[in-house]
């Protein structure tokens, strides 16, 4: 035990990035801080990513708990659940929660995550719609599947498709409405998007692309959605999955500099020297984040800074995605296609096994990879992209993956 009185560290947001930062701090210097965690959700920290798996019935809720109550107790961490921080007084260094509690801090970590984007549709006020972000949403969907048959998922990105898959597994008739021509267009090119659509349809998920939702219909609760072309689709449940927006209300109110997200420097420090921010709520060099890999990196950097290390700096790792739908393997990283004449594409299509791979080459370096059906070399491609290595000498084998490219 240290002789000094320990500094007080308050974490706002009991989610994945924030708690990973606490893990990193404890690993570095367990006795440095007296830690208080305040979370709006009424549970200890769980693995949000795996909500999809829980929805699909592949995992139970207790499987996805990352930090059970004992964890906080064991590490002398004060935990407040089900109460959000309402304001931060950076001058007096106190936070106040919605329920009126006040807590002093020496250092503060903002990790408020993000909020689902919900479009301003007529009928939104009708019960029967939700997003897919937390355990409350999960519960809504599970309940709906018990009472209704038709589910509409608006948004054919990663999250929407995982929701659709889960709902389908729960026995609902699911239709995905997607505004663009092909699914997951931010991660996949058209070819892969088509393959994905075909494979989902083959599994019984209806997909309508270029579908613009105009209104939610219903009397007491939602019963259908109408598309701009006039089509009406029955809906007992409507799930929005058209994107997330960093949750920055608190930061803005507290006078921190925000843009799309809470602005941080390379050490995850906000514009206030005692306030740090990690996770989906931050904006680093103009970039915001929606996947966990960069957050783990941020957690490390933030913990290092809070433990007095001076040389750590955040550089976002190459962004890559994979889809968690059992039996459909999709991987995407970097550029989705040739940007101009200088860019080159290498493709492989295997109709028989529904495999598709595409690499984008720029200046003799790997700039992007889309893998569909067989994704085992995804991480290696990411490694190559990050290293910026010249791949010309293995170009003719590159797409076939590490084992073959490096074979004698």
């Amino acid at each position, binding site marked *: 035990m240290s002789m000094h009185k320990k500094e007080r560290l308050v974490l706002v947001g009991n989610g994945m990035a924030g708690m990973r930062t606490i893990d990193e701090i404890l690993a570095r210097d367990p006795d440095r801080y007296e830690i208080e965690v305040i979370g709006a959700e009424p549970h200890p920290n769980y*693995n949000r990513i795996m909500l999809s798996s829980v929805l699909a019935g592949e*995992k139970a809720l207790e499987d996805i708990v990352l930090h059970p109550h004992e964890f906080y107790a064991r590490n002398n961490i004060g935990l407040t659940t089900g109460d959000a921080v309402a304001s931060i007084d950076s001058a007096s260094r106190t936070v106040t929660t919605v329920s009126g509690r006040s807590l002093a801090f020496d250092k503060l970590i903002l990790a408020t995550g993000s909020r689902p984007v919900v479009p301003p549709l007529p009928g939104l006020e009708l019960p029967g719609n939700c997003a897919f972000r937390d355990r409350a949403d999960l519960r809504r969907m599970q309940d709906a599947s018990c009472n209704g048959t038709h589910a509409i998922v608006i948004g054919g990105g990663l999250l929407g498709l995982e929701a659709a898959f889960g709902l389908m597994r729960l026995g609902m008739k699911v239709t995905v409405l997607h505004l663009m021509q092909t699914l997951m267009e931010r991660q996949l090119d058209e070819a892969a998007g088509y393959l994905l659509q075909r494979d989902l349809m083959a599994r019984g998920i209806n997909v309508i692309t270029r579908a613009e939702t105009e209104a939610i219909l219903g009397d007491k609760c939602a019963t259908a959605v109408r598309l701009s072309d006039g089509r009406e689709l029955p809906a007992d449940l409507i799930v929005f999955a058209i994107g997330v927006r960093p949750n920055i209300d608190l930061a803005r109110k507290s006078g921190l500099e925000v843009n799309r997200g809470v602005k941080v420097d390379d050490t995850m420090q906000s514009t206030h020297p005692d306030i740090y921010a990690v996770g989906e709520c931050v904006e680093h060099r103009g970039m915001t984040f929606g996947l966990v890999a960069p957050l783990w990196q941020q957690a490390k950097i933030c913990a290092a800074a809070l433990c007095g290390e001076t040389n750590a700096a955040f550089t976002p790792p190459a962004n890559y995605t994979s889809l*968690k739908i059992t039996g459909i393997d999709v991987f995407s990283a970097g550029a989705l296609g040739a940007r101009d004449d200088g860019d080159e594409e290498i493709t*492989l299509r*295997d109709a*028989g096994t529904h495999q598709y791979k595409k690499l984008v080459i720029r200046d003799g370096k790997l700039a992007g990879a889309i893998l569909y059906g067989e994704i085992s070399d995804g*991480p290696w491609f990411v490694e190559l992209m990050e290293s910026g290595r010249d791949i010309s000498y293995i170009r003719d084998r590159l797409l*076939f993956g590490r084992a*073959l490219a490096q074979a004698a």
Partner: protein
Amino acid sequence: MFHSPSLPSPQTPVKTTCPYCGVGCGVIASGDGSVRGDESHPANEGRLCSKGSALGETLGFRGRILYPEIEGKRATWDQALDHIAAKFSAAIRDHGPESVAIYASGQFLTEDYYVANKLMKGFLGTANIDTNSRLCMASSVAGHIRAFGEDIVPGCYEDIEQADLVILAGSNAAWCHPILFRRLEAAQKARGTKFIVIDPRVTASCDGAELHLPLRAGSDVALFNGLLTYLADTGNFDKEFVEKHCAGAESAIATAREMTINDIAAPTGLDQHDILKFYSLFASTPRVVTAYSQGINQSSAGTDKVNAIINCHLATGRIGKPGMGPFSLTGQPNAMGGREVGGLANQLAAHMSFSSPQHIERVARFWKADNMAQRPGLKAVELFEAVHAGKIKALWIAGTNPAVSLPRADRIREALHSCDFVVNADCHHGDTSGFAHVRLPARGWSEKDGTVTNSERRISRQRAFRPAPGEAMPDWWMFAQLGRRMGWKDAFAYEKPVQIFREHAALSSFENEGERLFDIGALATLDDGEYESMAPCQWPAPKEGRQGGRLFGGGSFATPDGRARFIATRFGSVTETPNEEKPLILNTARIRDQWHTMTRTGDVARLSAHTPEPYLDIHPEDALRAGLQDRGFTRVESAHASAIMRVRLSSEQRPGEVHAAMHWSFTNASTGPADRLVGASVDPISGQPELKASAVSISPQTMAWHGLLLHGERLLKIDSTYWCRIAVEGGYAYPLAGANPLARPGETPGDDWVLGMLGAEPAADLTVYADPMRGVFRYALFREGRLIACLFVARDSAAVPDRETMAKIFAAPLPVENRARILAGLSLDGVANTGPTICACFAIGQTTISETIERSGLKTAAEIGAALKAGTNCGSCLPEIEKLLRAGNPAAALIQAA
């Protein structure tokens, strides 16, 4: 009608004879495909060369003709034979007997030959029957007859073992008569036998040679004339032998002396020192054998070359004695047997001659033939000229592929195309069968019975040991059927080969009285059982007197006066001399592991590996001058045709001379046969064509793309500037190259072209790899999950996988996880499969995790994360990882979980 041979069980070993080269090795084979050398056969004493030992692999029925066909439609034997009989009869009726012809083969058994010869010369009244032996042995036959009075090979194989010096003249025995060469090597080891190779090229036979004389093509007469002069000048003549047993020595020497020994270097292009070394070794070594083959025979001066060699042996009396003599190595398994029956157009039968009316009358009497041919018929090249001129109205081609193997093959194709009626009896569909109006399925080796005679006059049995495919029949039966249908029932009443053999043997001794050395009268009385079990035997085999062994040792020759003849031979250059426009001489030859036009050996993977493509071999200096690169392409042009070939640099080539192997044809390579490029000049006496000296020009041929097609099927034509077919395990590889671009940079080749190359239907199950900017495209075609074909094309030849790497892709079924990987063009041996994905974030498979757990003895998910990163990102897979950890047998755990 036809007495089918009774076949042994598939496991029963049967003694038979190798069907390839003239060494004539004994083989023990059985229907299950096992093959080994016959220890008891004197030719090989149990050894077999690469071709012989792969015989078991040639027993597949790929590409076989199975049924008679008339105009491409299946017919019965009766229909086909009646049709042929009608056509032949009509031709003879309307155009005379000279309007029909048979072109047969050294692949024939003696019995086949005998019946064909008898039919033509005795009953159809024409000697228009020639064989591919014309391309092979005719000059030796003519040279023998000129010198000895009869077509006799005086020595036997032991002579090679008993010689102190063996001259290999125009013979790459190491590849073309491999077992004989083994015997020579053994002699070298055992008793220090030296050997000298006379060949424009450095060949495999030069290994271990005392001296290699890379003489200029066609200059052999000058070299051996010089030797004769040298022997005369240095007192090495055996005066007594020459005076007592020879005639014509003076004029031969006088003619030889027209060039002094110092003059020999210029035409032969040899080093004077080497020439003298050869001469003095020959002069000082009594036991010397000069073994010669196609380099001597296939020449416009072939007969003179043979006699120039024989002259030197006569001059020294080195003939017919142990370890001495001129020795013609026949190229084909039964060239000798064909000569025995008289299967060449200028022979009559059984070593009797058209030049003797007595002989004609005697044979007629023996055959009870009323329509004997009275004069020699057309020799191969003339014969096909007559076909081209429309003079031959009905032509039967059997067991040979003249559309490939005759010189000016393009003209031969024209001739075949224009001929009124062509019958082709063959085992395989090939270039020639495409021109036939009637195709007849012939039995091949392992399916038919009869005899063959090897280079040392040894008669061996070929025996049937497995059933023939479809309705295939032996050639003798077909000819006998034609004879019967044309009205000579009794003369062609044969039901089995032994009847033919007995008649053949009887004819050889018929009114012979020692006149003809070819006398096998002792065999005329063999009963069926004795024929069945006949052991290899060497002729002569008269009813009484000496059997087998060397001939002429006693100095008595087969001429009317018993004296051997020296022949005055004058050196003249090859017909096509190099000139400014066509500065190089093209030589053609065999390669080690292929036989003839590859109809049999071409489908055997391990025989294809040795020389897979039809290369043009060229000396690096010539290549540099012409701007050619190794493995690049060249357009070769002769006065007769042009071909695009792949270049192979070889310092074994004589500068100024290029070489192409003779085996390829239009049905297995875009180059077509090398003999297309070859001129039709023939030896004036033997009619044997000059296949080894054609003037050509070469120029670089650039290719816009390169490729490799792997296909399970035996494709006969491919839409590509350059292609050839190479057997691989379970299929074929086709190297490709195209002169015209397949696609502009950034674009992809047209679907039609791709589907056409693969032989795929539009909705086919395809895997496609495309790198359009680099111009690399790869395709794999599947049917019902099975790999059918793979196509690799690329602007840059470096992006095309090499054939060796891909050679095994049809050998075993392709696991589904390798469907796409096959297009990497790399060997997939030892490339691990990671198993079903467990960690999606880092794409770590179950196999990888399980193996790591086992190998490194990992206990916790954290350890696995540290080792593989698995589970360290989103963590969704941690439960699966835990499960793998818990399981004693990780794989089983996953199966349970699934």
